[in-house]
Structures are given as C-alpha cells and as structure tokens.
C-alpha cells in the first residue's frame, strides 16, 4: 500500500514538474536578458525598457512587429538602453503580475502592447509613479501612462487600390474576425480604395468569429473563392488565407507583416506595422527628460503603417497610383475618409468637402458602399 502511494506521489510530482515547465516558459525568456543589469548599471546606468507581448515573437503578425522595433532600438542605442521582453502574456490578471514585475525590477519605460493590458497597466502605473508606461490600442491614460495606436486603415486603403485595380471577377474576399470598429474601419478603408479605381467592385466579407484558427481561416477563404473572389485579404492573425489563395492560384494581400513567404505567387503586398519611429521618439523623450503622457495615433505619415514590397505582378501603373496616394496621405493633402462617403444604403455619411473625424473613426459601425452583405450585430 505504501509503495503504491509513493508511486502515485512520484507520478504526481512528475506531472506537476511537467506542468511547471510548460507554465515557466514565458518568464524564462524575460530572465535571460535581465540577468546582466548590475554590471552595466555601474558603468553607464542604461535606460531600462520593458515590453509585454500578447503573442509569441515569431507569430509573423502583431507581436512580431513590436519585437522588430525593440530589436531596432537595441541596435540604435547600444549600451544606452537595455531591453527586456515577456512574450505570450495572457490578458488580465496574469499581465498585471508581469507588468508589475517589470516595474519593480527597475524598468524606466514599459510598453504594453495589447488592448486587454489596459486596466492592468493603469493599476501598475498608479502604484509605480516613477515608471513611465505606454499602452497600445487603449483609451485610458494617467500622468505616467500614455497610449498609442496605428492608422492601419490607411494601409488598408492603399492595398484596396491594388485589389480594385487587379481583380478580374470584380469580387474581392475579406476574411474578418469580429465586427468591432477597428475591423470595420479596415474593411471600409479597403473598400473605398478598391471602389475609387473600380466602380464595379464588390467586397465580400466572411466573419470567421475567431482571431486565430488557421483551419477556419482557410475554410473562410475557400468560401470566398467559391463566391468568385479572385483576391483575398484578411483581418485575422494567421497566414492561412494567403496560403489558401496560393493553392487555388488566386491573389492575396497580407496583413500585419510581409506574408510573401506563404504565397510566392499569390502575395501582392501587405499592410504592415512599423513601430520603430514611435518607439524611438518615446525613448528619445525619456532620455531627454521630455516625456509626457499623450495619445498618439500615427499612420502612413509617421511610417507606423506601411506597405510590404509589391510583387512583380503588380503593374507599374498601379504602383504609381498607390505611391501617389501614399504621398498625398503623407503630406496631409487627403484623408482616407474624405467625403463624399456613402453607406450601403446610399446615404451620405460624410458630405463632400468634409472628412471623418477621429471620434467617428473610432466608433465606425456601418459598412460603406461597395461592401456586400449585412454587418452582423455585435
């Protein structure tokens, strides 16, 4: 009897150890770069910067883009800064622990890069007034907590120009995640771009009801191609849509990062995020003691939103058009949602000569003309 209990306990401890190994993954990555601070502190006292990521750094998407910017900071500032990152941090209570730990271990500036970190960041910011926080995509701020996001919809608009010019069936497929303003804004900007160059174009949207499920994203893409779509794009987190287009000999436009590796023939271009200019400005401000809590929403003009290189199949005329519009957006000569802008019913949302203000953009909850189907109620 004793023997079997011992056996049982042995089994449980192995199980427990296995569980710990799995759970211990995320913090370990953080400890590795954080191991050397004492030696460095004596010489130059570098600025310590912490990053909290929602996904793995190799997700070819959202987190990947943030980590690329972190690496760029390291390359640029060398010994003057020291960065630490923690990846795959779940939103909610877990993130509060991670953010708090980064604050306590002497980080001077902490970037928290997911919407769900908003309240935990605010809470930790309240407890650590000497530390500065920058939160991506949220709307709550404090004296030592600023917010930032990207006008990715500007990139969507430009890729819409490409899709509208290159479609032969006049049907473009859009695999979407959930009907929230951020996603709807992207669909509308994309459609507006496509319509500007091709008045016959229709954008069909399929809601996959998930941010991440490669198999489901692929099936959504197949459905759209069945409906006649010959160019696809997606607002979900994997590259499955690009792959599906490649397999069927159709075109695709990536999102988050350059997805050309997933579809050599299919991939036309992609809307990508580049956080380096914004991160550099923030680090510079802290180094110069000029940092203030603010709400930044940079885009094409600042380089935060950009396009991946065009594939060879994209005609020169299309490239020129996109480059011209990009320059106009950059110079502030135009905005994506300049009037006249109509909704699906043909009613005017933005009158001629006017433009959509940021407040309305942040609450976009209807489709514009050119999108097919009804917007699901959220």
């Amino acid at each position: 009897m004793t023997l079997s209990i011992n056996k049982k306990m042995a089994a449980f401890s192995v199980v427990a150890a296995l569980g710990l190994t799995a759970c211990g993954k995320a913090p370990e990555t953080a400890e590795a770069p954080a191991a050397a601070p004492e030696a460095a502190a004596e010489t130059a006292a570098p600025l310590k910067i912490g990053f909290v990521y929602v996904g793995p750094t190799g997700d070819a998407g959202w987190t990947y883009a943030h980590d690329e910017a972190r690496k760029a900071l390291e390359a640029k500032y060398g010994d003057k800064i020291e960065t630490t990152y923690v990846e795959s941090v779940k939103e909610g209570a877990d993130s509060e622990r991670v953010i708090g730990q980064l604050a306590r271990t002497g980080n001077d500036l902490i970037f928290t890069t997911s919407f769900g970190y908003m309240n935990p960041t605010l809470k930790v910011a309240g407890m650590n007034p000497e530390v500065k926080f920058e939160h991506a995509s949220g709307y709550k701020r404090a004296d030592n907590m600023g917010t930032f996001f990207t006008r990715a919809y500007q990139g969507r608009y430009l890729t819409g120009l490409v899709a509208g010019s290159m479609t032969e069936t006049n049907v473009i497929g859009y695999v979407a995640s959930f009907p929230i303003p951020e996603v709807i804004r992207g669909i509308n900007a994309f459609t507006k771009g496509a319509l500007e160059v091709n008045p016959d174009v229709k954008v069909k949207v399929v809601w996959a009801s998930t941010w991440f499920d490669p198999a489901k994203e692929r099936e959504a893409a197949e459905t759209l191609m069945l409906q006649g779509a010959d160019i696809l794009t997606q607002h979900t987190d994997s590259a499955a849509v690009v792959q599906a287009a490649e397999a069927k000999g159709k075109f695709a436009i990536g999102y988050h990062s350059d997805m050309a590796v997933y579809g050599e023939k299919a991939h036309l271009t992609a809307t990508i995020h580049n956080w380096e200019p914004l991160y550099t400005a923030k680090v510079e401000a802290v180094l110069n003691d000029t940092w203030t809590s603010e709400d930044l929403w940079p885009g094409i003009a600042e380089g935060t939103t950009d396009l991946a290189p065009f594939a060879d199949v994209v005609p020169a005329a299309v490239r020129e058009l996109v480059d011209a519009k990009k320059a106009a957006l950059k110079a502030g000569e135009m905005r994506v949602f300049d009037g006249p802008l109509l909704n699906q019913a043909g009613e005017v949302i933005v009158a001629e000569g006017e433009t959509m203000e940021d407040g309305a953009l942040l609450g976009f909850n209807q489709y514009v003309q050119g999108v097919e189907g009804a917007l699901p109620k959220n």
Partner: protein
Amino acid sequence: MDIDLIANILFATLRTGTPLILIALGELVAEKAGVLNLGQEGMVLMGAVSGFIVATVTGSLTLGVFAAIAAGLLMSLLFGVLAISLVSNQVATGLALTIFGTGLSAFVGASYVGQGIEGITPWIVPVLSDIPLVGKALFAQDPLVYLSWVLFIGVYLFFKKSRGGLVVRAVGENPEAANAVGMKVTRVRYAAVLFGGAMSGLAGGYLSLAYTPLWTEGMSAGRGWIALALVVFASWKVSRVMLGAYLFGAASIMHLVLQGLGFEVSPNLLAMLPYVATILVLMILANDAAKAKLNTPLSLGQPYRPQV
C-alpha cells in the same frame, strides 16, 4: 444552390472532419480499454510541430508524417508511464499532458513560426473525381484523408471481427476479470494508449502538413477537445465517430458558407452549431440512459493496480 457549390461543401466537410476522425478514433480505442486520456490537444500540437520541423529540415513530407506519429506516440508513452504504470489519476495526468504539449510545442517550434512549406497535395483519381456532386469530395482529397478512411475501416473491423477487439473491450469493462482469465491488462492498456497517441500525432501532422501547411502556436485551436466530445457524442460506437466528425465538420463549414451565400445569420450563432449539436446528442443519449450506459466502458477512467 448549384451542384458545384454543394460538391464543394461536401469536399470541405470531409476535409474539416478528418482531424476529428483521427483524434476521436484514437481516443475511442483508449477509452474502450478503460483509459481516459485528456491529453489530445497536447499530443496533436506536438505532432503538428514535429511533423512540420522534420518536413522543413529534411524536405520530405513522408518523413514529416512519420515524425508527427512518433511525437504523438512519445507523448502518449509518457502518459502511459504515469497513468498506467505509476497508477496516477488519469484526468489530472491527461490535463497535464495537454498543458505540457501546448507549452513544449510552442517552445521547440518558436523558430519555425513564419516559415512556409509546400504542403501535401491532393491525389486526384482520374475519371472518378469527375463524378458530379460526390466525385470531388471522395476522389480529390489528399492522401491523409484516404488514410483516415482506411484507419476507420481498420478500427471498425478490429472491434467487430477480431479477438483483439474483444480483449480490449474486456479490459475496459472489467480489468480484474480480464486479468483473472489471463489477459495482460497493463499491456493492452499501453497498446491502446499508444495507438491513441499515434492517431493524435497523425492528426497534428495533417493540420501542419496538409490542411494549413504552416506552424503557429496553438494551431489545433481546440480540435482535441471537440474530438473528445465526439467520442461521447458517438456513444463509443466506431461508425458514429465518422458520422459525428463529418457532422461537426459540416456545422463549422456552414457557418462560413451561409455568410458567403448572403444569409443574414449572426456568425456567433452559426459558430456555436457544433457545440449545440453535441449538447443535443448528449440530451438524446440521456433519454436513452440504459443504452448509453451499456456503451460506456465500465472501468473508464479507473486506474488498474495489478494484483500481486
């Protein structure tokens, strides 16, 4: 709806159901032997990542598939040592296996995220695949889909016709009695668990090499859990596993197809169809309680200590 569209829906349904069939068949065999392994999700992910890495490194998809199976086998061997030899709690061990597999696959696959490979391509049977309606679904799939049918027939015949099937069931119903008549309970349970692991690994390989040829963390997206429900849904009957898997497949496709056709149905409502289907079947099963009870392996989840 035109005939072409229906043919495509059928095609997609079979493809979507394939990983579910593989995982559920494996789990069904393990449960028939009285072992409840909740580690599918972890085994599938390890299979997916191992298959992808080996296929990327060696350039051979066949080796990738074997690596996926081997990874599933190893994971289930770990489960076997803990839950069968060391008689640990099966539920806790299985859950730990899922957590372990999810974490480990993310760890070893970290540098393979963002890479693409040329996936397994369909074997299109000439002439037959041109049959209207069903031709594409039945004769233009990739080889792993065909393999899932072979495995299904194999498991079906194993339980229907072979002595081995009887032994597995005897061990799952009453291990003490099986032991008394000279059956090697521990050995049979190991074999069943390893078969389950190999099947889960294969399902992982199907996901990362054929269905969506890429590796990303957590790419199985809960299919291991759906397959687990499927075994209950099928009330431990092999034939119903296949039916159920395709039903689930169809339900998750319809949610996307209906939108494409312009039906104004909430995607959230459609997304829950497979789960509603499971609950409905559970309710039907509950109404026929005696019958369901007859099908449930009596010693399911109970550890067996060999009498010395």
